[in-house]
């Protein structure tokens, strides 16, 4: 099983590094071959909202950056994991741009937000942003009924709990 793990390299902390190591280890133990891609603000162009990737040349972005290359190979991944800092209850700009360009696996996506100072409302916003609108709940893009899971980590202990949860069904 090929799995892509994308993380925001501009926001590395002790917490995010621990999360990355634990998630990769968990997935490898379950038989995944994990490809880690670390991207920063300067690597990814923002989505222009032109929708040409949906209409004129499906799957291909007008801006040619590394994300376009990831997007081309999206079908080879059984799962995509995004590790993102949570800012105001939102994905970081880097991860927002990567996600908006359709890099998520068509089967299974996992979005894990991290940050030691995330408050309860930001945590709730982040979870709702995914759980209420993605996968089967996506009313704007019907038919994209892949599995999408969301987790938030505020501590090393949370990382352990998230990985224990992943272990139960990541096979």
């Amino acid at each position, binding site marked *: 099983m090929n799995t892509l793990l994308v993380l925001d390299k501009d926001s590395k902390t002790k917490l995010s590094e621990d999360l990355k190591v634990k998630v990769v280890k968990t997935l490898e133990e379950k038989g995944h071959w994990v490809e880690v891609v670390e991207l920063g*603000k300067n690597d990814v162009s923002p989505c222009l*909202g032109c929708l040409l990737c949906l*209409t004129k040349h499906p799957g291909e972005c007008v801006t040619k950056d590394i994300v376009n290359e990831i997007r081309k190979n999206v079908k080879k991944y059984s799962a995509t994991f995004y590790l993102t800092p949570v*800012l105001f209850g*939102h994905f970081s*700009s880097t991860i*927002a741009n990567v996600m908006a360009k359709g890099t998520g696996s068509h089967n299974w996506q996992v979005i894990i937000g991290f940050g030691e100072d995330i408050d309860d*409302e930001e945590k709730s916003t982040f979870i709702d942003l995914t759980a209420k609108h993605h996968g089967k709940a996506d009313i704007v893009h019907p038919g994209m009924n892949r599995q999408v899971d969301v987790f938030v980590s505020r501590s090393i202990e949370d990382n352990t709990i998230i990985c224990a949860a992943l272990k139960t069904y990541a096979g």
Partner: protein
Amino acid sequence: MLDEDKKSICFVNGSLRGKKASSLEFLKDVELRLPDTEYNKTFLTVKAKSKESYPENMLKGIACADTIVFVFPLHNYGLPGALMRLLEDYYQYIEVGNKYNKAAKVYMIVNCGSARPEINEEAIRVMKNFSRRLSLNWRFAICIGTGPVVVITKKAPFLDLKLKRAYAEMVSDIKSSSSEKKDNYLIKPLIPAPILTRIKNYYERKGQMIQKNHKPQQTKE
């Protein structure tokens, strides 16, 4: 030169679609209701270049404002990446100790591709969290369903009274010193769904958003 007796307003256009942006139309609708004789206006547009942070003078424009109006399209049920980058840079600019107006009022106008404006809820929550983090004075949001369609129908009489009321309320609130809590405005197009679908398809073809021979499916509302 800024007139220091005037209140300052910073309009942030969160769309990268240039003159084609619906957000720009909504921004102009509010801006035109606020006379230049009473307000110093600053206009900022997010940028597509990823290799540099937003310049300090741009961030200062937000920091000095008495009122900040964010206008943007919904992307992936949240904020566009370019706008998120601006918020990140602004937050960092404040975190390192730069001064800003903590009493600034914050408004937002968000438009989405769906006819259901309630899907903008999480984007509102993100902007409220941003305001709370910086102790800014969050006021309210105008959420517009099917933004591009509302833009091309808004001049027709009787179709967008709620939108006009929402604009009037925003302008009145900007002028007022009241801190009374206000509800968000949800603007749903009043046009029946089948007509709406045809208008939307026409707009999309004209804007080359879909191919000319594409036959769209009827969507159930």
